[in-house]
C-alpha cells in the first residue's frame, strides 16, 4: 500500500500518474478516452500501468480522479429531467436571469437557455424576510403537492431554492425532508447546501445545475467504484474539484457541480507542485493547447481562487454568456489562442488570430488532414520552431508545403509580404493576445507581471512561452517534466478539503457577534467532520476564513482574509485594516469615512497537502555528453534566419549552462528559446530558462 494513482479523463486522452511513495518515483501513462463509457479506458490504462510496474491494484492506497463528465453534461444538455421549487411568484427567476446583454452591439445574440423549462418549475406558499424571519409558514401539505406535481411531470431530480433561505433554511429543509421520506427515489439539491449566498438568480442557477448533473454523476461514480473493486483495488477514491482540492466520492455525489473545472484545477495544482519543487513561492502558470491557452497565478504557494464562474457559455470567451455558478474555482483566464487557432485578415485589413480553431479535426494545414486555413502551428513550422520529422515524437509527419501554401494564400499574398513575415506576424499577434489577457488578469489582481516566474506546459506552451514571457517582462521560465500529464500530476499534490459558505449581510458595526461566532463554529465543524469522514489526518488540518466585503453601498465585493478564533467588537479594527489593505492593493486607493459591510463568509478546512519528493522522475537516462544538431530559425526582429542549436530534451545534462538561441525537442512538445537568454536543467530535469533584458527595454 505505498502507491497513489492520479487519473484524469480529458476529451481525447485519459492520463495516469502513479506515485511510488517509498521510492518517490513517478510513472506516467496515457490511453485514449473511451466512449460512451470512459471507465473502460480507466480500467485498461490502470491495468497496463500496473503490469508495467509489476504491482497489483491492492498496492494502491488512493486513487485521485478528475473528469470532464459534469462539464460535458451541462454543455451538451445531457442531464436528468430536473424540477425546480421556489417561492410562489418567483418561478420565472431562472428564465429572467439578470436582464443584461453580454454583447452590446450584436442584436442577434442568443442567451443561454435555462436548464429547467416552465413546466418543471413550481411555486410553494411560503415567505421568509431578509432578516430570516418567517412571514408565511410553509406547510408540509403544500411542499408535498409541489413535489407530486413535478413527479407526475416526469422529473428525476429536484432543485429547491427559496427566497432568503441562506438566512433561514427551515423551509428548504422541510421540502428536503418530504422528498427523502415520501419520494425516496428522487434526487434533491437544496440551495442552502449548494450555495447559501445572497442573489436569488445565481443561487437558483447553481442549485439547478447541481440537480441536473446529480443522477448522471451518481451513476458514473457507482460504476467506477465497482469496477475498481473488481480490479482488486481496496483503497480510497478521491475526486478532484474546481477549487484545486479533493473531495470524497460521497461529497462528489452530493455536490457534483464542484467537479465542473476539475481538469484545469489539476493543471493549476501541478503549478503548485512545481512551485514548491523549484522553490518559487509565486508563479504564473501558462498552459497552451490546441484551442485555448490558460493562465493562472500561484501566490505564496497557493493557487488564486475565485467564486465567479460561468458554465456552458453560449460564446466561449464572452463573459456573461453562460450560466453563473458561484462555487470556489481556481481563478484562471481562458484565451482563445492555441496551436490550432486560425489566422485571417479581417475587414479592416488587419491580421487576426483565433478564437476560431481548426482543433485536431481537420487540424492545422500542416497536419495534412484536410485543413486549408493557416494556423499558429503552421506558422511555428514555417519559422523553424517545429520539426516536421519529430512532431509528437515522430508519430506524425508535418507537411511544410501545406503550411506554406495556406499562409501564402490567406495572409502573405493579401498583405503583400513574404511567407516568413506573415508567419512571424501570426506568431506576434497570437503571443500578444495571450500576453495581453494574462497582463490584464494579473494587473486586475493587483500584481506586477514581471515578478512572476512562468511555468509553461501543454502541447504548445513551451513553443510560445519565451515570447509571451518577453512581452510580460518575465525573467525566468520553467518547462517542467511530465508536461503531457500535468493535470493528473496536480491531482496527487492536492489536499483533501471542504469549503463552507454562508451569507450574513451586515455592516461591520451591526454584526451580532454571538450569532456570527455560532455560525462560524458550525461551518468549521462541518469541515472537520468532512475530513474525518475522508480519513484525512485532522491533526494537521488548517482552517482558512475569508469574507466577501465592500463599502456599504457598493455592488462588488472583494475577498478579505479574516482573523481566526472568536470574533467580537474588538475584531473590528483588524477586519477593517485587512479590508483596507486588500482594497488599496487592488485599486490603489481607499475611500475615507465610509462604513464597511460583510456579505458572505467562507471557511475552508483543509488537510495537509501530500508531499512528493521526487528524487528521480520518469526516465532515468543520464547522458554523458551533449549531442545536438543545428537548423535555421526565424526570430522576431531579425531580417534573416539564425542558426540555432537543436537538442533532444533527454540528452540535456544537469549542471551545464546552455546558450540561446536553442530549440529543445521532446515527445510532447518543443521548447523555443530566443535570444538574450541562457538555460540549464535542474536536478528534477526541469528546463530553467533565464532571460535578460537590454537596458530600458521593459
Amino acid at each position, binding site marked *: 500500500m505505498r502507491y497513489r494513482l492520479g487519473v484524469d479523463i480529458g476529451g481525447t486522452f485519459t492520463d495516469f500518474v502513479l506515485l511510488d511513495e517509498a521510492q518517490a518515483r513517478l510513472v506516467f501513462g496515457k490511453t485514449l478516452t473511451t466512449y460512451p463509457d470512459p471507465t473502460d479506458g480507466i480500467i485498461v490504462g490502470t491495468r497496463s500501468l500496473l503490469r508495467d510496474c509489476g504491482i497489483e491494484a491492492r498496492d494502491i492506497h488512493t486513487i485521485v480522479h478528475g473528469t470532464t463528465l459534469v462539464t460535458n453534461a451541462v454543455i451538451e444538455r445531457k442531464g436528468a429531467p430536473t424540477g425546480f421549487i421556489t417561492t410562489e*411568484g*418567483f418561478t*420565472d*427567476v431562472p*428564465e*429572467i436571469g*439578470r*436582464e*443584461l*446583454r453580454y454583447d*452590446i*452591439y*450584436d*442584436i*442577434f445574440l*442568443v*442567451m443561454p437557455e435555462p436548464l429547467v423549462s416552465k413546466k418543471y418549475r413550481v411555486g410553494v406558499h411560503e*415567505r421568509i*424576510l*431578509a*432578516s430570516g424571519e418567517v*412571514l408565511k409558514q410553509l406547510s408540509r401539505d403544500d411542499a408535498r403537492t409541489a413535489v407530486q406535481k413535478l413527479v407526475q411531470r416526469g422529473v428525476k431530480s429536484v432543485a429547491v431554492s427559496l*427566497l*432568503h433561505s441562506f438566512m433561514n433554511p427551515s423551509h428548504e429543509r422541510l421540502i428536503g425532508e418530504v422528498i427523502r421520506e415520501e419520494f425516496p427515489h428522487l434526487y434533491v439539491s437544496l440551495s442552502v447546501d449548494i450555495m447559501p449566498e*445572497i*442573489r*436569488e*438568480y445565481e443561487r437558483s442557477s447553481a442549485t439547478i445545475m447541481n440537480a441536473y448533473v446529480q443522477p448522471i454523476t451518481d451513476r458514473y461514480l457507482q460504476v467506477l467504484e465497482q469496477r475498481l473493486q473488481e480490479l482488486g483495488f481496496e483503497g480510497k477514491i478521491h475526486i478532484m474539484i474546481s477549487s484545486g482540492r479533493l473531495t470524497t466520492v460521497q461529497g462528489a455525489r452530493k455536490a457534483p457541480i464542484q467537479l465542473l473545472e476539475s481538469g484545469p484545477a489539476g493543471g493549476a495544482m501541478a503549478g503548485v507542485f512545481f512551485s514548491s519543487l523549484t522553490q518559487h513561492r509565486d508563479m504564473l502558470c501558462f498552459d497552451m493547447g490546441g484551442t485555448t491557452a490558460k493562465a493562472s497565478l500561484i501566490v505564496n504557494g497557493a493557487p488564486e481562487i475565485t467564486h465567479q464562474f460561468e458554465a456552458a457559455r453560449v460564446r466561449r470567451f464572452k463573459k456573461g454568456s453562460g450560466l453563473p455558478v458561484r462555487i470556489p474555482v481556481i481563478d484562471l483566464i481562458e484565451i482563445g489562442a492555441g496551436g490550432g487557432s486560425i489566422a485571417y485578415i479581417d*475587414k*479592416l*485589413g*488587419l*491580421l487576426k488570430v483565433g478564437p476560431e480553431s481548426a482543433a485536431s479535426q481537420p487540424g492545422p494545414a500542416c497536419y495534412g488532414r484536410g485543413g486549408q486555413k493557416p494556423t499558429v502551428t503552421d506558422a511555428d513550422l514555417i519559422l523553424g520552431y517545429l520539426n516536421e520529422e519529430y512532431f509528437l515524437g515522430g508519430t506524425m509527419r508535418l507537411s511544410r508545403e501545406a503550411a506554406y501554401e495556406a499562409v501564402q494564400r490567406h495572409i502573405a499574398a493579401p*498583405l503583400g*509580404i513574404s511567407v516568413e513575415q506573415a508567419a512571424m*506576424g501570426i506568431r*506576434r*499577434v497570437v503571443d*500578444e*493576445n495571450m500576453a*495581453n489577457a494574462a497582463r*490584464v488578469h494579473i*494587473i*486586475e489582481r493587483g500584481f506586477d507581471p514581471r515578478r512572476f516566474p512562468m511555468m509553461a506546459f501543454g502541447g504548445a506552451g513551451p513553443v510560445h512561452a519565451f515570447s509571451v514571457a518577453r512581452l510580460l517582462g518575465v525573467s525566468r521560465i520553467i518547462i517542467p517534466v511530465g508536461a503531457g500529464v500535468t493535470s493528473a500530476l496536480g491531482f496527487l499534490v492536492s489536499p483533501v478539503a471542504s469549503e463552507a459558505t454562508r451569507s450574513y*449581510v451586515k455592516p461591520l458595526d*451591526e454584526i451580532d457577534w454571538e450569532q456570527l461566532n455560532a455560525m462560524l463554529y458550525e461551518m468549521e465543524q462541518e469541515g472537520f467532520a468532512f475530513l474525518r469522514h475522508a480519513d484525512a489526518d485532522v491533526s494537521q488540518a488548517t482552517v482558512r476564513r475569508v469574507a466577501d466585503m465592500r*463599502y456599504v*453601498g*457598493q*455592488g*462588488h465585493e472583494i475577498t478579505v482574509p479574516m482573523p481566526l478564533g472568536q470574533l467580537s467588537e474588538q475584531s473590528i479594527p483588524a477586519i477593517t485594516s485587512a479590508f483596507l489593505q486588500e482594497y488599496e492593493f*487592488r*485599486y*490603489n*486607493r481607499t*475611500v475615507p*469615512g*465610509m462604513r464597511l459591510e460583510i456579505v458572505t463568509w467562507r471557511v475552508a478546512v483543509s488537510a495537509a497537502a501530500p508531499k512528493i519528493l521526487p528524487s528521480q522522475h520518469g526516465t532515468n537516462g543520464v547522458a554523458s555528453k551533449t549531442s545536438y544538431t543545428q537548423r535555421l530559425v526565424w526570430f522576431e526582429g531579425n531580417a534573416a534566419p539564425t542558426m540555432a542549436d537543436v537538442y533532444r530534451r533527454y540528452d540535456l545534462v544537469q549542471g551545464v549552462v546552455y546558450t540561446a538561441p536553442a530549440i529543445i525537442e521532446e515527445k510532447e512538445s518543443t521548447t523555443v528559446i530566443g535570444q538574450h537568454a541562457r538555460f540549464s536543467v535542474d536536478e528534477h530535469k526541469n528546463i530553467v530558462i533565464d532571460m535578460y533584458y537590454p537596458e530600458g*527595454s*521593459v
Partner: protein
Amino acid sequence: MKQRFDAITLSIVWSRLIAIVDEAGTTLQRTAFSTVTRESNDFAVVLMDAYGRSIAQSSISVPSFLGVLPMLTKVLLERYFPPNSWREGDTVITNDPWLCAGHKPDIGLVSPIMRNGALIGFIGTIAHSPDIGGTLWGAGGRDLYEEGLMIPPTKLIDAGKENTVLLDIIEANVRAPKQTIGDIRAQLAANEQGTRALLRLMDEMNIDDIQGIAEQVIEASERAMREAIMAAPNGTYRYEYDADGDGLDEPVRICCTVTIADDEIIVDYEGTSPAHRLGINAVLNYTYAYTAYPIKCVFSPDVPNNEGSFRPIHVTAPQGSLLNAQKPSPLGARNITGNILHAAVFGALAQAVPNQVQADCGSACWCVVLNGYDARRNREYVEYFFLNGGYGARPTMDGIPTLSFPTNVANVPVEVLENSAPILVTEKSLRRNSGGNGAYKGGMGQKFAFKNISHEPINISLLTEKTKTVARGLNGGGDGKRGRVYIKPKRYIAPKGLDKLYPNEELVLELPGGGGFGVPD
C-alpha cells in the same frame, strides 16, 4: 513625425489601446458606489488624441456615451482651455448636459496626457454619480434648476493641486456626499491608470507620439463603416413613432427621416414634438449617441469604436424639440427618450435593409427610485432599481424575454433590494403572451410587484414607458402588449414622476412585451 504601422503591428497596438480603456473601466466600475455605474455599465472611458478625437472607448459601456467625450473635449479645447494651457496633473470636470451626456448626474472628467512636456492626447471618463442634488433623480424636475447642481467646465485638479472649494460645494449639495465624492475619485483613478498604461505602451514601442496610430485606427474604422453603408440601397426612409410622453394626455411623436447617400447616413428628426413639460427631453449630443448606436449595430457591430465609426453618421433635430432641448428644459429622465430612438431608426432602416434590423423592444428601461428612512437599520436610503421589457424579434429569431436594450442595465436581485429598502417583493414573473406575434415572436415582458412593509411612506420616483403606446412589430409582425402601472388598494398614480408609497400599499408594474417580426405563418 508621424509613424505608420504595418497591418500586424497595428493589430497588436490597437488591441492594447482597447485593453487600456477596458482595464481602466473595470477599475472604475468595481470601485463605484453609484448603482447605475456598477450594475448598468453606465460609464465610459475614452482615449483621445491631442485634438480630442476618440481612438478607443471602453467596450462594455452603454450607448449613451458614444461620441460624447470627444465632443466634450473638442469644446473644452475650443472654448475653455486651448491646447497650450494644459499642464501635467490637470483634470477638468463638468456635468453641463449640453457639453456632456445630457443630464446633470453624468459627470465628465478629462485629463491631458503629457509626454516629455508635450500634450499628446487626452483620457476622459463619464460616470453616473450617486446623486447631484435637486429633486430625486427622474422626470420630476419642472425645469433644469430643480434638477440639481450644475458644474461648468472647471479645473478640478490644477497641475496636481486639488480644487477643494469645488469639492466642498459638490459635497454640500448632494444627498450621498461621501459616495458622490468617492465616485469622482474613482474616475480620477481610472484616468490616472489609463494614462500610466498608455505611457508604458509608448515606452515599450519606443514612440513619442500617438498621432500616427490615432489616424490609422480612425481611418480603418471609418472605412469599414463607409463600406457597410455603401452596400445598403440609397434612398430616404421615413418612420413615425408615437411614445407615451407623460403617459397621460401629453404624448410625444418622433419623426425620423433616414437618408442613405452612398457611404453616409443622415438622420433628421424634423417634425418631432417640441420639448416636453416633464424631464424627458434630450440634448443633441445624447440624441446623436442613441441614433448612432442602432446604426452601428446594423452596419458595423464588430469594429471597435472610435471617431471613424461616427464620421459617416450625421444627425439633426429641430432646435427646442424633444430631441434638441434648450435651456431651461428639464432633462433628468432623458434616457426614457433616448431608449426609444432605436425603434424609430430601425423602423426607417427596415425599408432599406430588412434583414439587419430588429423589431421594437419593450423599452425604455423602467426605473424606480426609493427614498426614505429605514427604521430596521436606523438610516436614510436612496435605492435605484431597473426592470426591462421584452426584446424585439429578429428577422431570423424570436425576441428574448426581459432583456435590456438599447441600454444595458441589470436588474437588482430581489434579495439585495429587500436588504436595502423596507419593501417586500410579492412577484417577479414573465408576462406570458406579452410579446408581439409574428413569423418570429417578440420577447415577453415581466410583472414586478412590491409592498411597503415599513411604518413610514416611501418617496418614489417612477420612470415607465409604453403604458399607452406599444412596442411595434416590423415587416408585418404584431405589436407587443402595453405595460401597466397600478397601486393596490386602488388609487391613482402617474406613470412618470414623483409620488409616495404608503405603508401596506402595493405597487404593481407590468412591463411591455417586444414587437414581433414578419407576417405570422
